[in-house]
């Protein structure tokens, strides 16, 4: 275990150093990533100025929801870059995944360190900025319980989306190409929970409640922290289901990943 951790740190170090080689290129990449998140949120914030609120949620409250997702998805995207299905599919297609299997080192650690997209730091930073805008625009009455719960909410989202990346990567063992449906769950899912869930039609909300329970990751914790009433009358425990959803998703996806590895048949390239 300790050996694996040391190795993880070393391999990450290699990744980071190699990305910092071309300073200008790296800086431009950071700038582009940061500006993307910034302008996406700015377009929403500017439009909210005109409309005042979205289904009773003010600009500050939406910034709170939005910032949480950006931070969590950014961290996930950084840590799980190696599992990014589009990227991982290439390893399967080119047969480079076979090399990974041959090395006497933990496979998951090797895949995790295939990539460590440092440019996501810009996404996380801008996400924190949006979150701060949210804090300033809302009057949250903080309690120790809320403060303590906040990191768990973020962690749950990291686990949840990380799990989806792992599932998407595993599927490429059979399909070779990353499948588009996974994009709907990862990028579509993170878009969905960046807004109050009450804006969506019933079928969509039910999908993200009962089939993919993403509603509990951000929306319900936010209702609890912002002291907003629940329009869907769920039991009072609903805001605290996030860690459960995150951990179960990650555990199931890792089990699927191990199943995939034992059934992996190379493409032969």
């Amino acid at each position, binding site marked *: 275990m300790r050996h694996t951790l040391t190795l993880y740190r070393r391999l990450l170090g290699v990744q980071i150093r190699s990305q910092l080689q071309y300073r200008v290129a790296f800086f431009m990449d950071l700038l582009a990533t940061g500006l993307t998140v910034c302008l996406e949120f700015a377009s929403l914030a500017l439009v909210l100025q005109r*409309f005042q609120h*979205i289904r009773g949620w003010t600009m500050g409250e939406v910034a709170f929801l939005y910032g949480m997702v950006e931070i969590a998805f950014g961290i996930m995207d950084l840590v799980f870059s190696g599992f990014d299905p589009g990227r991982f599919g290439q390893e399967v297609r080119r047969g480079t995944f076979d090399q990974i299997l041959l090395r006497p080192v933990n496979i998951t650690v090797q895949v995790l360190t295939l990539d460590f997209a440092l440019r996501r730091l810009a996404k996380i930073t801008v996400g924190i900025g949006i979150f701060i805008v949210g804090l300033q625009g809302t009057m949250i009455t903080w309690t120790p319980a809320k403060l303590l719960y906040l990191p768990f909410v973020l962690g749950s989202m990291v686990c949840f989306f990380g799990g989806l990346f792992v599932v998407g990567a595993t599927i490429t063992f059979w399909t070779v190409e990353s499948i588009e449906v996974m994009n*709907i769950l990862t990028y579509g899912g993170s878009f969905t929970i960046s807004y109050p869930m009450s804006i969506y039609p019933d079928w969509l909300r039910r999908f993200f409640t009962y089939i993919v329970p993403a509603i509990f990751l951000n929306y319900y914790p936010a209702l609890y922290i912002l002291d907003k009433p629940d329009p869907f009358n769920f039991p009072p425990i609903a805001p605290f289901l996030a860690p459960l959803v995150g951990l179960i998703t990650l555990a199931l996806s890792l089990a699927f990943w191990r199943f995939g590895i034992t059934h992996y048949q190379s493409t032969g390239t």
Partner: protein
Amino acid sequence: MRLFWEITRRSFRRFMTYRAAALAGLVTNVFFGLLRVSVLLALYDGRPEVAGYTVPGIITYTALTQAVIAYLSLFGWFDLMQSVYTGEIAADLLKPMRLFTFWLAQDTGRAAVNILLRGVTIMIIYGLLFDLTYPQTAVQTLAVILTIILSWLLSFTWRFLINLPAFWTPNARGIVRLGYVLAWFFSGFLMPLRFLPDWVQRVAYLTPFPHMLNSVVDVYVGVLSGTELLRVLLIQAAWVLALALMGQLVLKTAVRRLVILGG
């Protein structure tokens, strides 16, 4: 000219072979469109019209933005940059054709496949799901066709131009991405420009980006009419020419710097 169409035809057939991928991408476009419709309708909150866009108008806006993503290559096109890094550009420069024309011919095929497979299909799907607005008169229909073609030419000249830094730096991906991010915001892809504060709109209209998308929507849903239509089409064409010329100028200095590593 024959060479141009020959390249276009081949590119068309090449992209046609990725039918399954195009259809899969279409599913994502439709889904994201549904999310964005939800956001916009929640903002409207029962208002029949905002800044010239009626409810069917704003749904048409969303449908159009999703329909042209692949056609305009809005999420990025790095092919020219890649050809510099792989060295393929050496062979391309030897072809009996300008580099710009060569890529334009290929992009014509690519765009044609995407407007047919993804663009038209997405509009039909949204037409079945929602009440949309459609061009009313023959003049407007003609203007729609022209503006859609010009928007693609504008996107191409922009993509060509921002790929050129590849001649100067060993990794231009960040710079190219910056070029696309600016286009998303100022073209009205993220939110209709008419919903943004006046000063943002004024800044946007100093750039070519509104004419990649926002103008197409305005012409399509009928916010613009009469001489305004003609004016928009002329401005679009002027930007296409300007960006194409700029691309040629930059390319001229770029080619002089080009070093191909043998492999």
